[in-house]
């Protein structure tokens, strides 16, 4: 589904050139659950952003669903993003001025989904994540765990092929963190690929495969045991 070859990302300011990612090669299959680990500043979020088509690489190839996307314009990437990729952020990134329902509805609006279908899909997503009773609340009126549920609902409502999660549990206590991980695992079981950046070794164990990033390079890769066992 996703294939990256010799990918390089360089940030330039007037005086400094920083190589955030160097010589990255990575393949992600449909339905896979991949965890990316590494210390702060190693480039894992940059990698995630490139995989999510919200940033573009400086060099290298990037195939997404069979298309070479590394030279895509922002407009093309936006077109590909909607409907194919869902996002879950560490800081939830819900729009404060919109209610739970409206936040979840937003991706469908950009996809020009009809009103009746929107209603149905938003309702289903909220129910799936057990926050339907909070649909008229604003984000600030919810707990962190509830906010992240809304974020996950927003990510799944467009029925994406892949969900990108950038430290989805980073701002949550362990109980809420566990819940969110359970949600992601469930989603993965129902067929959605998940790429997750995390600091937590325990949560990384939920994935099929873990990729270790250090100083912009992939320094290691291992399959998770339970997954191996299941296989």
């Amino acid at each position, binding site marked *: 589904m996703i294939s990256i070859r010799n990918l390089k990302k360089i940030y330039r300011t007037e005086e400094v050139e920083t190589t955030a990612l160097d010589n990255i090669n990575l393949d992600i299959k449909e339905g896979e659950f991949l965890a990316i680990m590494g210390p702060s500043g190693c480039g894992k979020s940059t990698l995630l*952003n490139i995989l*999510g088509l*919200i*940033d573009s690489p400086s060099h290298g190839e990037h195939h997404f669903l069979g298309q070479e996307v590394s030279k895509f314009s*922002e*407009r093309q990437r*936006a*077109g590909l*993003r*909607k*409907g194919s990729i869902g*996002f879950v*952020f560490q800081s939830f*990134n*819900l*729009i*404060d*001025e*919109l209610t739970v329902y*409206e936040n979840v*509805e*937003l*991706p469908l*609006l*950009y*996809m020009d989904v009809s009103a009746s279908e929107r209603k149905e899909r938003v309702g289903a997503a909220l129910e799936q994540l057990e926050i339907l009773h909070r649909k008229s609340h604003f984000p600030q009126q919810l707990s962190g765990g509830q906010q992240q549920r809304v974020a996950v609902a*927003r990510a799944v409502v*467009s029925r994406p092929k892949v969900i990108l999660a950038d430290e989805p549990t980073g701002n949550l206590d362990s109980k809420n963190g566990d819940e969110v991980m359970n949600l992601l695992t469930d989603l993965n079981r129902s067929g959605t690929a998940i790429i997750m950046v995390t600091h937590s070794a325990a949560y990384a164990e939920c994935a099929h495969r873990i990729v270790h990033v250090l100083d912009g390079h992939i320094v290691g890769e291992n399959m998770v045991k339970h997954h191996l066992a299941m296989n």
Partner: protein
Amino acid sequence: MLKNYVLVALRILLKQKGYAAINIAGLAAGMACCCVIFLYVADELSYDRYHERVDRIYRLTMTSRLSGSDRRFSRTALPVAPVLAAAFPEIEAVVRLYGRSAGTQVLNGDAKPVLGGRFQEERFFFADSTVFRVFSFPLLKGDSATALAQPNSVVLTEETAHKYFGDADPMGHTLLFEGTHPMKVTGVARNLPDASCVHFDVLASFDMLVLENQSAANFLNTDWLFGPLYTFVLLREGVDRKHIEQQLPDFARRHANPQYADKIRFSLQSMADIHLYSEYTDEEHPNAITYVYIFSTIAILTLMVACINFINLSTARSFVRAREVGVRKALGAHRSQIVVQFLGEAFVIALAAFIISIALIELLLPGINELTEKHLSLFRQDSAAVLLGLAGIFLFTAFLAGCYPAFVISRLRPIAALRGGAVEHRASGGRLRRMLVVAQFAISIVLIAGAIIVSGQMTYMRSLPLGFYRDHVLTVPLFSEDLLTILGTPMTTELRSRTNAFEEALHRNPRVEAITLSSVLPGNGSVITSVLPEGVSHDIPIFISWLSVDYDFVQTYGLQILSGRSFSRQVGTDHLQAFIINEAAAKEFGWTIHNAVGKRLRRGDAQTGKDGVVVGVIRDFHVASLHERIRPMLMDVEPTTFAYFSIRVHSGDLHGTIAFIERTWKEFFPNRIFEYHFLNRQLESMYRSEEKLSGIIQGFALLAVFISCMGLLGLASFTTARRTKEIGVRKILGASVWNIVLLLVAEYTVLVLVAIGIALPVAWWGTYRWLEAFAYRIEPGPGMFIAAGAATLAIALLTVSWLSVRAALRNPAQALRYE
């Protein structure tokens, strides 16, 4: 999607009430001002356009070159019109108009005056019967072809007819003109629009004018130089004005009086240009176009200041919205969708501001109408164009104010936007924002400097010694309010003895300090006369100002005799052969102040003029307005032309003194209406357009500063919020509150200083150009401009330092926790 945008826009406005209030209030104020000025300009530009044939109507104007320099007159002499009509077949019709103030009386069926039926009409006009062919003055009653064709006929406006006769039909009724001549009402005209340079309440047939001036009729009917009235011509369709104008020099040479036939030139001025583009010696409100330009500039500047606010506040806030933009983009929004969303928000805010501004305009209009002496209104029958214009202002503002923020915010890359957005944004947006603040303050400073200098000039003119007493001088017109006394009823011997008796009666009251009569009032301009001084060649007549004054004029007005003496009753022959001239006249004639006394002089021509001797030279005083330099001037005692009493009274118990004067007036002149003015107020009214400008520019300067400061407040609050962490770190590292305040204030001080640097040359140039219109003017020193800059700087710093102190006092731990 639209619903989503509107919801977000409204919720954001509600959540950030302060921001919304600043934004909307600033925009509303800017729009209101722009709209008001738009109404004013639209009104100015609509003058006289209501005449159906306006593009074929021209006013005959005259330029005379009698004493070296050209003098341009909008009025022309009586005999020109009929000759003109006969000489040019291309002219369809000619009409003469003469307006003055006149007393009227309503008579009943028995030709007896109706009780309470006496009026003083300020706009009493005499016109040829062709008036209705040239102009579009529709008659509600009567036939426009014949209404003024008969002698002694009169047309009233609807309003005047109602004033005189109530709901009764005025047709066929008789009015008495100046208590002597009966006139028959032959028509009722629809009320005239305000935007009209010809404005009558009563329109009498032209023969009345000659009728009441029998003694001067011969002079008036033959002299081509003395221009008391307006001559309008209607050209036939397809006739080019230039074609007629080319033949006018020859026309003047053939028909005008030979002694000055080659010294006068005629030209045609388009009716549509009269209000806006008139610059004539005898025009009361010259060159309205100057003020149209000045006010339009002010309107655009004010609107720009308000728009800049909007742009600045919106882009400054964009870092708050950046995350939202990032999320939207991550979810698949295109840039165009973001642009539409933010433009839409701008429109919502602009719409709110526009609605408030309409309410504001309605609130402000009465005051503005008083200031501008107009009847501006948002909602009139003919206001479709005006409303369309207002809608244009709204759309323009919304677009101007919304465009920049929309495009800046939508440009954010989603990755940067999600990170907080400020990083890549600060570099470009920040610089532009600073430039806009500079522009905003530069505009404010220009307006403040303008306000200071205009009001400085007004104060200067009010305090400038005019060379005569002007305080506590009451002026009472003897016949009617008219500068051109030559057309008033001449002073008879009987009347002269009555005025003398009136003066004596007044002198018995100790509060009356002095009283005199004169043909015109000092400061109000004068009639021009030809003179022939001793020792000057006979070939070229010299034309100078002429005042006919009574014996005690010099004493009443406190004029200073430099050599010789004042007029004196004791001498016995002063009314026959004595002249007093001013310094400028002595200089013009090549005399000194001392050797002038005793020189011979002739005023007027050999037949009707006056020969005499100069008995005194007075110090120059301002006979005309301060727009003009002092000209050579001549005074003599010529009672037949007296038109005004000037009564200098003691400052105490003015009411009692005026009541006493009125009682005495009624005793001596029972048939004449008593009206009086204070001379100093009359003089001030000559500078009304400048007063108007002064008031308006002060208002706008205050407003611009107010809007700018609101913007600054909003901007500074966002900047300090963004620098919260920096402030916290600095405080932890040992910075004092004072250090922090300085740090925050310094940024804005630099901006205002740059604005001062840009604004002052512009302000200097603009005010210099404006002051050029005054012969006597202040020399604005650097102090005035520095004051404008300093005032702006002080207000700006006050605004910013309040926020800065608050930010600096905050607990640093709290500041850092926000990160």
